[in-house]
């Protein structure tokens, strides 16, 4: 084997080993590096009431109810399997609408309601012009694998 081929093999082996190690390490981080709990995680892991956690999921259709005081809002966050009722007092982001994603900081009360202290809206990967709203284009929108951000 020529010297340059030896160096190339070494460099590529090093790259593969490093990337492999990095991917394994970050993959193992999975639970710790999650940005939020889903409602199913809350059912499964039962965080202690009063402990600060972050909840993320979709706002259930038809679940947003505004209280009489004008700033308190009640809604249900779901992830397809579990549901979590949430109470929030404050100004909601523009993207906070039914059927869209939401991330809330707060804590669980003893009766199982989530008291949110801050509310962030999560945008999904679909970009649809205003004029086309409501037109079914689902055939064009089911994504599984990532190529480019």
């Amino acid at each position, binding site marked *: 084997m020529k010297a340059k081929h030896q160096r190339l093999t070494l460099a*590529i082996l090093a790259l593969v080993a490093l990337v492999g190690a990095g991917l394994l390490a970050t993959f193992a981080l999975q639970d710790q590096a999650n940005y939020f709990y889903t409602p199913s995680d809350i059912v499964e892991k039962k965080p202690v009431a009063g402990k600060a956690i972050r909840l993320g999921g979709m706002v259930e259709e038809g679940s947003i109810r505004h209280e009489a005081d004008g700033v308190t809002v009640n809604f249900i966050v779901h992830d397809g399997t579990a549901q979590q009722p949430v109470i929030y007092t404050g100004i909601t982001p523009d993207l906070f609408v039914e059927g869209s994603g939401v991330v809330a900081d707060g804590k669980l009360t003893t009766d199982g309601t989530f008291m949110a202290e801050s509310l*962030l809206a999560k945008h999904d990967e679909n970009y649809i012009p205003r004029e086309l709203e409501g037109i079914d284009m689902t055939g064009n929108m089911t994504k599984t694998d990532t190529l480019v951000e």
Partner: protein
Amino acid sequence: MHAYANPTRFLSLARPLTLWFLVIGLLLVVVGSAFGLFFAPADRLMGDSVRILYIHVPTVWLAMGGWTAIAIASIVQIAWRHPLAAVAARAVAVPGALFTALGLITGSIWARPTWGTWWVWDGRVTSVLVLFFLYLAYIALANASGEKGGVSRVTAIFGIVGAVNIPIINRSVVWWNSLHQKASITVSGSSIDAAFLWPLAINVIGFSLVFGAIVLMRMRGILAETKVEARLKRMAAE
């Protein structure tokens, strides 16, 4: 491959390429941005703030593309000892860091109206911030070696090691629950409507060409510097 190791031959190719990349790239950026800002529709939920897409995506794309180029050039440097590979890697580092910073800044500005916050420590945002720090470390290391022209082998090894972060950035929205949405453009198609996609594609190509022109200019600058250095040494010896 070693045909272009000869700086004279490389420069005769790089000089016209720089001009073409710059002119076509800037033209595409102007056309794409004008389309994106004035003619593309507003998003159903985000409204006009969706227009940041046309700057944010190309800059982050080049931030990741830049480090990929550094990693490839570093392998070529170590395996083939190709003299221009190290010059190319060094030339990519500064614009790469700049585009990463632009990606982070545009992302932050976009996050304020849409997510409701300037900054979050989710997987995607944090891994791109790490990429920015990797660029700064690479630049520091390349300058610290004191080598004129190329970079030291330690720097090249660092360029390969840092490539670990690129697949992590790509997978960060899949592995972890993140506030950043999942990828919109994938092998199976795009979930970005065609009305947004065309100006975006034009801008991605345009920004990439401008980035290429900057890298070529910097490579020529580094080569010119080493020439001056060599000439000064010769004059001092005489």
